[in-house]
């Protein structure tokens, strides 16, 4: 892991000069801004039970669907298409260092963009000193959830990028995988089929992977290690598959 910092700083720099990063950032902040004002407007008319921050984080999947693919789709596919993967991997670095460096760079940027939404809440506290609006618990829980679930989601994006030399294909693949992971599993959880008693173990598994449940728990301040484990091991698995993917492609190229 000697070269990890070198690759990480290089990748961050490359992300910062890439146009898709800025597209992701602008789309993300604009969308989140709209959502946030929409929520506030709603709250100013009718008092609600949930705090605005909880509602805000419930919509986390909207930006995840486009932001993660935009940040990660290039990372490996572009190097392969350009042939720079060949110069990179013939330098004294390992595939693991390369994949982890790229992953960490995308993850940090992902966190950075989410952190920018902290500004919304900051402005809210400055100008609406009504403590009814600001509930620190769900807010921190929400950000923690974003940080933890991002470990997995960004790894999925990196994995998709390791499979194709075409960044558009990688982006769409990342979108599809994330959709299956977030919406697909939630939908499976609601299937009649699983309600049967015989399906109880399967139902538990599906329940365990329900991302929205995790968010709810985090917002209520419940941090379950099993949920942490789900994201950490999911992320690790996706990264291992990315490393294997890069190496297998070399074997068969």
């Amino acid at each position, binding site marked *: 892991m*000697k*070269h990890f910092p*070198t*690759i990480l700083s*290089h990748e961050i720099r*490359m992300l910062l*000069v*890439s146009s898709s990063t800025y597209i992701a950032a602008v789309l993300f902040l604009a969308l989140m801004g709209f959502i946030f004002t929409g929520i506030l407007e709603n709250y100013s008319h009718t008092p609600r039970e949930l705090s605005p921050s909880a509602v805000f984080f419930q919509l986390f999947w909207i930006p995840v669907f486009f932001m993660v693919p935009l940040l990660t789709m290039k990372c490996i596919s572009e190097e392969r298409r*350009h*042939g*720079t993967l*060949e*110069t*990179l*991997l*013939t*330098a*004294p*670095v*390992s595939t693991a260092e390369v994949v982890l460096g790229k992953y960490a760079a995308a993850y940090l940027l992902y966190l950075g963009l989410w952190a920018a939404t902290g500004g919304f809440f900051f402005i809210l506290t400055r100008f609406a000193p009504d403590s009814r609006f600001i509930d620190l618990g769900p807010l921190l829980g929400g950000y923690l959830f974003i940080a933890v679930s991002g470990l997995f989601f960004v790894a999925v994006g990196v994995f998709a990028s390791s499979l194709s030399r075409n960044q558009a294909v990688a982006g769409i693949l990342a979108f599809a995988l994330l959709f299956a992971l977030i919406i697909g599993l939630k939908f499976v959880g609601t299937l009649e089929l699983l309600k049967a008693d015989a399906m109880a173990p399967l139902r538990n598994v599906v329940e365990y992977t329900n991302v929205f449940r995790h968010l709810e728990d985090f917002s209520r301040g419940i941090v379950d290690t099993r949920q942490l484990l789900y994201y950490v091991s999911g992320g690790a698995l996706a990264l291992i598959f990315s490393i294997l993917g890069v190496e297998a492609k*070399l*074997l*068969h*190229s």
Partner: protein
Amino acid sequence: MSDSSPAIEVRELAKTYAGVTAVNKVSFTVGQGEIIGFLGPNGAGKSTTMRILTGFLPATSGSVEICGHSVAADPAAIKRLIGYMPENNPLPEDMRVGEYLHYRGRLKEISRKKLGPRIDEVLELCDLKRVRHRIIGKLSKGYRQRVGIADAVLAEPPVIIMDEPTIGLDPHQILIVRDLIASLRGRMTVIISSHILPEIEMTCDRVLIINQGRVVAAGTPAALRKEFLGANRYDLEVAGDPAELGALLTSLDPDVAVEEAAEPDADGFRKIVFTAPSGDIREALWSALAKDSRFRVRGLGRSRHTLEDVFLAATRRSWDATDAPASRPANVA
């Protein structure tokens, strides 16, 4: 590792891509400090061989040793021994030249303290000082090529492998790149590939001609000429009856073979190319023709064989060998 041990030793190397044999039992050794050229038509297997040498691709069978380290068993050590410039010289488009070399230097484990001076040195060597702060994507092809070479030599590895370093350059840029490669002579072992013959001939100590995944000829350019086109070849411009001329030539050297006889031009002179295997017959021919009133001579010269002729002869010979039915079973198996 003693100085006399070979820098690169390749034994029975073979590579098959999904049933297509790209490299077929190639063996060769390269001594330290040698500059060696891989020559072969497109699809001959030059790039595949080079990628296996760098450890980027695994071989299907056979072994490669670089400075005594096995590529298959010790890829990490190999990466530190080789400076590699792949085919088409891929470079990140949106980095500056200096930044790129700095990044590559860090990856190649040059210490921070040494890296700055070393980058200056390499920029000087490759004449890149002027473009140090330019974006790589906006550089001309000649500069890009030199950035690739600068990267290959950056960590001063004992072995440099460059895949078609002069492809797509104009003659002036080719000259610069050639001088650059020649300046590495003696300090580093260099392998370059090309399908452009004069390049190889001028820079390389030894040439390996590869066709269809096989080494079909190897040696110094001079030795190859001798092996493949032993005979001396002459160009003669003469006016007169070709049949009588043939008799005269045979009287000088019984083994003369006329390769080419052109139609006579407006003045009655025709160009004749012939070979005479034994010794130089120019002087004897000249005086015989001068004395003989049947012929008028305008020119006589001995043409030097270019490596191109050797290359064509060697590849033709290998096509013949593979087209022969006897070698088919070996190919299929």
